[in-house]
């Protein structure tokens, strides 16, 4: 287990390094005048040159990269060109906002999709299964920007029940969270429900379920005691992987509802070519991806005794 974690930690460091180099190179190759962005587009050429020189932009790219890397190792993320404040000052509050959004999505999506998936999977082919499957497929096939527009048209413009944007300019307001959460849940629950259904249906055809039923146990007891634990192994890892999606996949929703989260920040930083901010966002995304995958692997091994960590006892 310790060996596994160390190996994963090494992987994490390596992935971060590779991603940071790729991001740096991509931004290096994209045409754009950093000085004009910082000083305004009507600054004189001389002014721009002075700024570039003062900020070390005339040094070779690898030197600038190594300087950034050295700073990163000391915890200094650099200063945002667009927001003119240290990257950390803007990144962490935005990340926290997305964590709030993601937690709300998971809190609704997980029970909903597991329940529906189990109901559909335990009686495969029944009307309840058909209905849940159709709903899941339809909602998952509608992209977020379409469902966001549809829900806004209905609840904001036609009925006037909900606020149309979620900038939280007057402080936290749960009503502003309803539509972004609804759009994300609508998009994602069908996928997890389908995974759960498939897993459940698979378990229900296993010989030990038939044995339990033939033993005379009630259907309810068989499902709750025998089927569920085995059926939930696969959905569990899928759900953990959704955490990763919730971090970077929320760009559309955050932008549509003007929610000040990580996705919207990444979009603004990319549009502006804000190099240190993009790098910091990329690093956070890598950490979250690797950590959730590691957690999924550990949980999978714990839930399913057939899986062992590499290097452990066979």
């Amino acid at each position, binding site marked *: 287990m310790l060996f596994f974690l160390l190996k994963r930690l090494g992987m994490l460091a390596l992935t971060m390094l590779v991603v940071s180099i790729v991001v740096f190179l991509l931004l290096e190759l994209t045409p754009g*005048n950093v000085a004009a962005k910082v000083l305004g587009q009507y*600054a004189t050429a*001389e002014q721009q040159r002075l700024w570039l020189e003062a900020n070390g932009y005339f040094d070779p790219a690898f030197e600038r990269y190594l300087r950034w890397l050295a700073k990163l190792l000391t915890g200094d993320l650099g200063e945002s060109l667009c*927001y003119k*404040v240290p990257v950390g000052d803007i990144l962490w509050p935005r990340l926290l906002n997305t964590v709030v959004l993601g937690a709300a999505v998971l809190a609704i999506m997980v029970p909903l999709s597991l329940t529906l998936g189990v109901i559909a999977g335990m009686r495969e082919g029944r009307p309840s299964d058909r209905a849940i499957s159709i709903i899941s497929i339809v909602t998952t096939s509608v992209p977020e920007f379409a469902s966001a527009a549809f829900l806004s048209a209905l609840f*904001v413009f036609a009925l006037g029940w909900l*606020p*149309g944007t979620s*900038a939280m300019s007057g402080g936290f307001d749960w009503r502003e969270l309803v539509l972004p959460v609804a759009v994300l849940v609508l998009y994602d629950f069908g996928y997890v429900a389908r995974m759960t259904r498939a897993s459940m249906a698979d378990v229900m055809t296993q010989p030990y379920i038939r044995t339990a039923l033939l033993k005379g146990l009630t259907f309810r007891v068989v499902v709750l005691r025998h089927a569920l634990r085995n059926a939930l192994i696969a959905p569990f890892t899928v759900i953990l992987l959704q955490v990763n999606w919730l971090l970077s996949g929320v760009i559309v929703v955050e932008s549509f509802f*003007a929610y000040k989260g990580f996705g919207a920040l990444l979009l603004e930083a990319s549009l502006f070519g804000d190099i240190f901010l993009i790098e910091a966002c990329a690093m956070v995304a890598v950490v979250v991806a690797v950590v959730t995958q590691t957690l999924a692997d550990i949980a999978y091994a714990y839930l399913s005794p057939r899986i062992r960590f590499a290097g452990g006892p066979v």
Partner: protein
Amino acid sequence: MKRRPSAVALAAGAGAHPAIPDLAATARRNAADRRDFLRTATLLGLSATAAYALAGLAPGTARAAAGASGGTLRISMKVQEMTDPARFDWTEKSNVARHIVEYLTMTGTDNVTRPYLAESWSASEDLKTWNFRLRRGVRWSNGDAFGAEDVAYNFRRWVDPKTGSSNKSLFSGLSAGGVEVVDRHTVRLHLSKPELAIPENLYNYPAAIVHRRFSDEGGDLSKNPVGTGPYRLAEFSIGQKAVLVRREKSAYWGPRPNPERILYIDHGDDPMAGIAAIASGQADLNYEISPDQLELVQAMPQLQLLEAATAQTAVARMRVDRPPFDKVAVRRAVQACIDHDRLLELGYRGRGAAGEDHHVAPVHPDYAALPKQRQDYALARKLLAEAGHPNGLELSIDCRSAPSWEPTTVQAMSAMCRPAGIDLKINTMPSEQYGDIWNKTPFGFTGWTHRPLGVMVLNLAYRSAAAWNESAYANSAFDRVLDRANATLDIPARRRHMAECERILQRDAVIVQPLWRSIFAVGSKNLRGYRLHPTNYHQLGGAGLG
């Protein structure tokens, strides 16, 4: 012969320009229309009320029904960095700042410029010497008295190339040495060439007056928001919000504005977000909507549509020093493919006026009508062959993805070019990216804001080596005629010079200008006392919620 400044004009400060009696007589005879008189007279230092009376008009402009005092006015608009007003390059930046720092003059929604921090002004007969008498009793928010030293500091800063302010080309006849402090409340400008639009230029958005120690105290308005304006900056976070709180009644020199607080909320780049915010009661006003959102807004009873006729536009400009546009025949060929009326229909639903490829708008007082341009494919093909492209030509134009009417219009242009054998490819990109290349790309579609006089934009964008001359157009003959237009007070006479400027620009085919557009914004139904300014400047003093 160099004319001496008129003693009458300079001695009294508030004295009327010697040309005003003649102008008034002309206005009454309707040789120049009354609006033109009004504008020119107020530009020359006559108060707006007196000018209205001289022209035989009822004083004042019709104000929208007054709003109630107090409360918070919430506006959906991008909240960008707000470091140095002299270096502002987006109107949005100035809209937050203009409640903190103020201008010497103020141009109203009726395009008439009135006194603001300058109580009155006067010009010499040759329009080379300008005298500004400043308002007394104005205090900065840090307690200092406002005076001539502050104003002189700003002028000197603007014309210093190190500042990098677009004001430098706006006041191209001014050098740091030409700024004279006459006394504590009077500043005199000595220009190297005549300039009519000085008062108008002083309300251009990067011309807000900052404190005389602005640079010494950090040079960042968002961190050290010292101003003479009626509001103080209570909260500011880029990309999120700006909160402005009304100062005490005794602390501000002018009439008390209605809103107690102004809250700017950044809803990002999606224009629908601002509309949704107003529709659901989260905001009272937004910055701007595009014409393709008109129908949506009109269908919603909880919204009111605000509209202003403007000289705002976007021009497809060609770098005359880059191939293939270094050949005038190529530029003329592109021009000959265009049906401007149709472009207005296709690009902007007909809401505005057709462009004429010379960047002077029919709403400008100095506009001169030229013979109408016609779409002529035979001519276009002939010109292409002349330029060495008998089998057609492939071109690429850079264009912003938003506002949406811009790519739509460029698409229509591209379709119009095809029959002549010009394959116009469109390269759309985010605004930020276009901001990097707007004056470098060989062929680009650049948005231009409204300016109250035709000469102003010609000075900024088409004079040789002007700071915003994005087409690298350099024509000394054009510069000379433009100088004459700048120096001509009499409106019909100035129009004759402008007609020549317009003809030269059209003939040299520097730009294809599809249209002049009306602008629109959205307010909530209970927003009162607010009129949309043709330049999107937020003048919120009379605004309130009913």
